[in-house]
Each structure stands twice: as C-alpha cells, then as structure tokens.
C-alpha cells in the first residue's frame, strides 16, 4: 500500500514538472517573445489543468505522508514561502492581464507572470536541493538548472502548439520532441525523489488511513486522467483563445 501511494506521489510530482514545466517555461521566455499575447494564449487553456497537479501533490503529502509533509515544509520554510508567493504572483498575472484595457496594465501583469515563473523555477531548485541536504548556494544553482530545463520545455511547447510561428522563432516540433522536453523538465525532480524513495516510504501514514484513501480515490483515477486527456484533445490545435 505504501508503494502504491509512493507511486501516486511520484506520478504527481513528475506530472507537475512535465506539465506546469512548460507553463513556467513560457513565462520565463515572455521577455524574449515578440507576440506575448499569443504565447500566453497558447498555455492559457492548460494552466488550470496543470498547476492543480501540485495542489494534488500537497494533498497526497498531507493525507498519505503527513510526517513528511510537516518535516519537509517546515524545514525549508523560507524557500517554500518563496515558492508559494511566486506561484500566487504568476497566477495573478495570468488572471488579471486582460481584465482591463490599456498597454500599461497588460505589460505590468505580463511582467508578473515572468517574475512569478522565475521565482517558481528558482525556489523549486532550492526545495529540491534542500531535501537532499544541499547548501543554499547549491539550491540557487539547481534553480538555474530547473529554469533552463523549463525554458527549453516551454520553447518546445510553443513550437509544437504554434508550428512555424514567430513565438518560437519559426520552429516546428512534433509530439515526440515535446515528450523529450517533458522528460528533461521532469528530471530535476525525479532524481532527488529517487534518491530519497526509502525515506519517503518510511514516513507513510498507517495502513488504515491508506486503505480508506485507496478505496475512495483509486476508482476515480480514470475520471481524473480522462478530464486531463480531454483538455489536450480540445486545446492542442486551432486558434489560440484569448481569456488569459
């Protein structure tokens, strides 16, 4: 049972990095993109379905690994707070940038997306380096690694979603290339998780809790997966929507 929930934890972490990785990557690339509206529009329909993987990961930590949750978050207090604040700023940028007219308003909140995305990438580096016991400087360096991986993934996403468009310098990428860049985006998270797998499993909740969680959650996994697939089938092609 612990192994199943460790698997769910790993899938959610990998999924978050593979999916939200390109949203954050596109956020990082916005200052270097000519058509920012189009770039934000490309990730727009995916963001809500992507960022929620981390919300789910937090829930699994709380429910299935509560000891780990308390230890990890409180031991890396500052950098977790930075991660949350960056996330908030990035989301505010997405939701607000088109709500009023005027170039100043939109440029300000577009800037918030980039600042938030940079904060997310760097603080993820800090959290991941921190849990394997690395010093602060390593965390910063690891953050740069995460940022570069996300930027590459974001760029590949744009070249896949809008092939030939100027948002990705006219490049065209297929689904296989996007898969490869997803693996690149996942790697910075999966390496530390693999190293720590034993410690994580040791901190799982007792089987009474895990049984209840399994009984209630597992039957719905096809529904969760189906909803995600529906997003990709609906928004992978066609005109870029304009709400965000």
């Amino acid at each position: 049972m612990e192994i199943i929930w460790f698997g769910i934890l790993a899938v959610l972490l990998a999924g978050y990095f593979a999916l939200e990785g390109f949203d954050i990557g596109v956020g990082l690339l916005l200052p270097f993109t000519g058509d920012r509206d189009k770039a934000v529009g490309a990730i727009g329909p995916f963001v809500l379905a992507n960022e929620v993987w981390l919300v789910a990961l937090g829930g699994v930590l709380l429910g299935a690994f509560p000891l780990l949750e308390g230890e990890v978050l409180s031991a890396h207090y500052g950098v977790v707070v930075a991660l949350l604040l960056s996330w908030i700023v990035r989301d505010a940028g997405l939701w607000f940038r088109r709500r009023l007219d005027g170039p100043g308003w939109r440029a300000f909140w577009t800037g918030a997306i980039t600042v938030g995305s940079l904060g997310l990438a760097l603080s993820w580096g800090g959290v991941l380096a921190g849990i394997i016991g690395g010093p602060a400087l390593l965390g910063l360096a690891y953050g740069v690694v995460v940022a570069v991986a996300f930027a590459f993934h974001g760029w590949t996403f744009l070249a896949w979603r809008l092939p030939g468009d100027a948002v990705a310098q006219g490049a065209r990428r297929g689904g296989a290339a996007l898969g490869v860049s997803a693996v690149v985006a996942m790697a910075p998270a999966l390496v530390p998780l693999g190293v720590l797998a034993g410690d994580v499993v040791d901190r799982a909740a007792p089987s009474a809790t895990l049984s209840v969680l399994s009984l209630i959650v597992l039957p719905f996994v096809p529904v969760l997966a189906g909803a995600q697939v529906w997003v990709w089938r609906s928004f992978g092609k066609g005109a870029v929507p304009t709400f965000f």
Partner: protein
Amino acid sequence: MDVLDLARWQFAVTASLHFLFVALTLGLAPLVAIMHTRYVRSGNPEHERLTRFWGQIYLVNYALGIVTGLVMEFQFGLSWSGLTHYAGDVFGAPLAIETLLAFFLESTFLGLWVFGWHRLPKRLHLACIWLVTLTAYLSAFWIMVANSFLQNPAGAVLQGDRLVLTDFGALLANPTLQMAFPHVLSAGLLTGGAVMMGASAYQLFRRTAEREFFARSLRMGVITAFVGAFFVVSFGFAQIGPVESVQPNKWGANALAGVAVGNMISIGMLLFLATGILLALLKWLPNWRWLHPLVMLITPMPFITVILGWLAREEGRQPWLIYGKLTVADALTPGLTAGQITLSFVGFVGVLGLLAVVDYVLIARLVRRGPERVPLGERPVPALTF
C-alpha cells in the same frame, strides 16, 4: 507579538480572505450554470449574455479563491506541523480526498469551460460548468469534514503520541458537520444572490441602457438571496444543538466567539427579513429606483456574516486546535523562528491583501462596464466566412 500570535494571525487573515472569495464562488457557480442551461435549452442570445457577464464576475472572484487556497493548503505543514504530526493520519485524509477528487477535477473542468466556448460541443461545454459546481460543492464538503474533525475528533484514537484513524464513517457522521455543511452552502447562495442583486440595483439606479438585462438579474439575485437566507438561518439554528452536544458552552465561555455568534444571528435574521420583503416586491422592484441604494447596501452584509460565522466556529474551540486533544500552542511548528513567521506573514498578508483589493476593484469595474464587450466566450477574431 510572539511567534504563536503571528502564526495565528497569519492563518486567520489568509483563511478569512479565502472564505470571502470561496463563499461567493459557491453562490455564483450554480447561478452561472443555471443561466448557461437556459441558454443551451432556448438558444436565446440574452441568456448567453447573462452567462458570459456573470461568468466573468465569477471567474475574477475565483482567481483569488485559488491563490488564497494555495496558502491554506501548505500552511499546515509550514507553521502547524505539530498538527500534521499529531493528527495528520486522520485529518490529512479528507484534505487529500478534497484535492484529488474535488479540486483536481474542478480546476480541470473550469479550464475546459473558460476556454471551451465555440470549441466544445454545446452540451458538453454546459456539462463542464455543472461539473465545476458539483466539484466545488464536494470541495466544500471535504473541507468541512476536516474542519469538523478539529471541532470534534470523532473516529480516531490516540496511539503513542499520535492519533490514528479507526472509523472513517465517524468522520462523516460528525454532529458538527451535518448541519454546518448545508449552512455554509446556503451562506454561499445568500452571498452570490446579494452580489447579483446589488450589482443589478447599481446599474438600474444609474439608468442603464441594459434595463431588461439587469431587471432579470435583479430578480434572480433576490430570489437566490432569499432562498440562501432562509436556509442559512434554518441550518444555523439547527446546528446549535448538535454542536453544543460536543462543545458545551462553546459561545458562552469565549467573549469574541459570543460576540461573533450574536451579531451573525442578528444580521442573518435581518437579511432573511430584508430579502423576504424584496421578494414580495419583486414585480415592482426593477422600477422603484428609490429602493435601489438600499439593495446595494445589503451586498456587503453576507460577507460580514460569513466572517462572523467563521469566528464563532473557530474562536469557540480555543485554546484547542483539536477540541480536547491538542492545543493551538502545541500545534505550532517546533523551532519556528520569529524571523520566519514575520517574513511569511508580511509576504502572504501583504501580497494576498493587495491582490484582494485589486480583485474587488476589478469586479466593481466589470459590473460598471456592463454586458458589452465581455472577453469570456468571445468569438475567435478571424471569423469564419463562407
């Protein structure tokens, strides 16, 4: 202020902010879903305009619900790891279920609804907003299950220095849950209805060109607010007995909780009365311009009662975090420093506070702008030509 005070204030401010936005979300979601259903059934473009206008108000409000919610989720592990250590094996389960089965789906379907205009088949698109509503209500349910465990830790026993889950059914049968859950949902409807009628009254008072649009909205808002007020008062009184059966003298022993519960009841009754009168005058209300400022004045009232209700429930269990088992002081993260909590307090309260102000200003601006040029559901720019 010491570390404990700051941690409590941080939780109180972020939780209250979260609740203000979530209450409106819970109220507006079914209203937008009903408008959208009418549009799909009748094909009437007026219903489409209603759905898009109120839908965007709902969404701008929703944005702050998300970002405040993120802090809520991770705050347990950050500053209250004593709680996750002592009771995480029990308390964590409903929260995990909430994130996986409710919010995960809510967020995914919301994205499909927001960006699915003119792209998804009409009926499937409509299904998305109903699924968003359903999963939002499920979210509220599981959050209330977790909260009710703090009020009355049923279904768990102490083993060593930690609580273990013995009876999941007891979590769901908790007497502090059964009446409180519909009480919260009704409070949401009251809030959503009050915002809708207040915004409509504002537009009608300004002699809007969109008279029919806002007269219709005003009527829908009043009916919803009355239904919400009726049930919020009913379930409110209905829960006093069950709650006091497990927390005797909850509102007598704590001064702040007592003041909060008293004022909540007074304002709640007043709202019930006021919305009842407005309902009786429904036929004439859109034309009676002199009454519109009064309708606008009602709008902030449900928000105030929502906060009072939260205070009554949470202050009333002090000094316990888990009633009778774990004090708030013992739940604090061991070794949390003044520097850390000050930093996060300033960061969260500052950023979320500013965003909340921006959000309410935006909602006011969108109400003022009216149903012309609503970006939600706009047709794609290069229109198809044949």
